[in-house]
């Protein structure tokens, strides 16, 4: 039976997070020093508090000590957290999402026995995945052609008795500087291509030979071009130099962690739920400002030109949220997906929401006039973070081509 109402439990949890964000997170997130420095990190205290509210272990099943949130609930709360700070919310979402996949789905009992207790009990225990989520990351680029590009796995694992010895570097892994446990995609044959010979192995932080390095502000490529690293929250390169881990740390039967759902575009739209929170932060700040800023003898919210901007933002956020919630609901009810939609909602959400929120962030900044580009204010940060969402995962353009393949019933071999 169709219903657009969250359960009482979902609403309560959301209200609690909203209060936490309003009372605790915003002051830290929008502290002038932090805005000026554009420091993507977040003070540990707030992450600890969030953990104590159950947000770090949100998706972990209740039986294992988590909150057992489904995708929809995770999306509802991720939006609220991101209203406070996008990096903070992304970090928590990443750990929570990995917590469910690793502990509820991928680990053996023995592995769980080794790692679960610390994950549940340590408020500073975060997770990271060094690997490629999707094999066919060039789908879309290969619109209507069967050629697949293959993942390149940069870390090689060689056997040494009961151990695996890891060598290689992942250039960027989200959550790496905070993570206490890494799931690492490695290949056991240096000559293998794609996912042949790929396995996933658990590597605790602190293992000898494991080095985490935060990204340089600027990277220069072989072609002399400079690049900025775009990400939310925290992350860094992860280098393995003769890192020895027991072969028992391999996740049985896994060559990738999120592959199937993400490749079909029918997985959880968690990333875009975070993005909506970002858009809301921009929107709410613009409303507040428009009510107090006086020009022409009236608060600018009373000018049609500003009212129109706020309505444009509201409509974008409303349509974005509906799409994300629907995609999350469909991901939660994968068995009935066909009755809910014929199309890949997760990938549609990526294409639509990232564009809509970027526009919303720009429109919100416009309400602030010159203040909207000054780092005294969060506005330019909102615009930047919204751009990062446009270009994370897959590009919007290739996302649309993946939708088009679904429309055309094209199946890649």
């Amino acid at each position, binding site marked *: 039976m169709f219903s657009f109402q969250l359960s009482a439990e979902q609403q309560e949890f959301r209200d609690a997070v909203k209060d936490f964000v309003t009372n605790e997170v915003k002051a830290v997130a929008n502290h002038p020093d932090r805005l000026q420095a554009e420091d993507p990190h977040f003070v540990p205290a707030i992450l600890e508090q969030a953990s104590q509210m159950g947000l770090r272990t949100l998706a972990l099943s209740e039986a294992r000590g988590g909150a057992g949130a489904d995708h929809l609930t995770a999306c509802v709360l991720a939006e609220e957290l991101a209203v406070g700070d996008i990096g903070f919310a992304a970090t928590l979402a990443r750990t929570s999402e990995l917590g469910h996949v690793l502990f509820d789905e991928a680990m053996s009992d023995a592995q769980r026995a080794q790692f679960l207790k610390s994950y549940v009990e340590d408020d500073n225990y975060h997770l990271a995945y060094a690997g490629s989520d999707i094999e066919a990351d060039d789908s879309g680029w290969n619109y209507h052609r069967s050629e697949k590009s293959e993942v390149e796995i940069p870390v090689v694992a060689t056997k040494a008795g009961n151990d695996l010895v890891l060598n290689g570097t992942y250039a960027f892994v989200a959550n790496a500087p905070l993570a206490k446990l890494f799931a690492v995609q490695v290949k056991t044959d240096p000559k293998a291509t794609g996912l042949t010979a790929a396995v996933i192995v658990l590597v605790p932080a602190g293992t000898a030979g494991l080095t985490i390095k935060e990204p340089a502000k600027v990277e220069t490529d072989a072609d002399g071009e400079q690049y900025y690293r*775009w990400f939310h929250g925290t992350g860094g390169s992860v280098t393995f130099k003769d890192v020895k881990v027991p072969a028992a740390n391999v996740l049985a039967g896994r060559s990738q962690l999120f592959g199937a759902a993400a490749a079909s575009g029918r997985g959880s739209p968690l990333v875009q739920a975070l993005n909506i929170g970002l858009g809301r932060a921009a929107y709410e700040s613009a409303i507040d400002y428009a009510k107090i800023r006086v*020009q*022409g003898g009236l608060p600018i919210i009373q000018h049609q030109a500003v009212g129109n901007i706020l309505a444009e933002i509201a409509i974008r956020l409303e349509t974005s949220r509906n799409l994300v919630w629907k995609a999350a609901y469909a991901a939660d009810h994968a068995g009935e997906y066909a009755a809910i939609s014929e199309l890949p909602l997760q990938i549609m959400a990526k294409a639509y929401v990232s564009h809509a929120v970027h526009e919303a962030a720009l429109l919100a900044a416009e309400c602030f006039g010159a203040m909207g580009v000054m780092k005294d204010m969060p506005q*330019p940060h909102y615009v930047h973070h919204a751009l990062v969402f446009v270009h994370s995962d897959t*590009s919007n*353009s290739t996302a649309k081509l993946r939708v088009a393949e679904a429309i055309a019933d094209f199946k890649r071999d």
Partner: protein
Amino acid sequence: MDFSLTEEQRAWQMKAREFAANEITPISLAREQIADPKHTWDWEIIKKGSKQGFRTLAVPKAWGGHGADFVSQALVMAELSRADCAIGKAFSQNWKWSHLISMVCSDDQKKRFLTKFLEDDTFVMGKGITEPNAGGDNRLPPPDFPKSGFRLRAERKGDEWILNGEKCFIANGGVGKLFFLDARTDPNVGIKNGTTMFMVPADTPGFRFGKQFNKSGWRFYMNAELIFENARVPDANRVGEVNGGVKKGTDDTTGGDLFGDLELAAHALGVCDHACDAAMKHVKTAMKGGKTLANQQWVQLKLNRMYMLTEALRSFVMRIAWEHDAKVHTQNPGLAMNFSCDTIQDVTRLGLEIMGSSNGRMNASADKLARDAIIWTHLGGDSVLRMRYARRIIAASK
């Protein structure tokens, strides 16, 4: 109808192109990566450019300047901004005030200030209008609230004027040697009738720079508060009549406002050219799905749009530059500025799209262009400016 350039115009264009490639491009990203907004400015590039004539381009020949026409000015702005629009703007900001001096200042003022300006390679200028509580109200004074607008107060005391108040978001604030200030000399009427303009050297007693703003784009280009605490300005530095500071109606003859329109549009053109250049370079080498990006249809469509908008903007910019030279007065310069705002947003965003999704990294130049572009949304294309030109067009229509 003739779109070709004179030899002089072409010469300025080529000179600027060379300077941009050889001097500006190599330092552009390095300057923008400096975190402290007080240190992004570089006197060396200003001095070098000044020696080439880019600081003093607009000073009339009669006063010892280059006397370049508006078409040449537009060409130079576009060329400099093709390398770095914040550096380009640091030069052209001075042209605006050269125009102003040569058009409305007395011979005595011209002698005193143009001479210094021409001699000193580090002499840069700015103008203060905006205040913390007066932005839109200055641009489109609301008829129902006649007293709104800036509040900087100037009171006459003998041969001097005593200034009190504060300006903010002022270009070249922190580095400028001379500022033009709009101040209220009659606080009982609106800014149209109660304003006088003053020339205020940076070493004026009672005048100091306040906060240096940390912008997300245009990082080279300085922007600061100007603070006046009983600042003493001699009456000899008054520009024009008392209470005659803000020109009535649409025919701004100060050269300030009108040129500002052309200025933003021409700089935007340079940014768009930059974005096209970078995207073209990228699509010819980057590979996806087994072919270069140039062979992807969606990339071709975006590239078409980048070039299409850029050439539309070039046509518009060159037309309004000619209109300035021909002293044709229309609302076209304002419309061109609005158009440049929309165009620069679209073109830089398309550039990001084409250059995006390389493993969570973004080409530093494409990233910078998009941040630079956002400045235009309030300088060149906010709703107040758009309504201003619409109202003028409505008023002028039969």
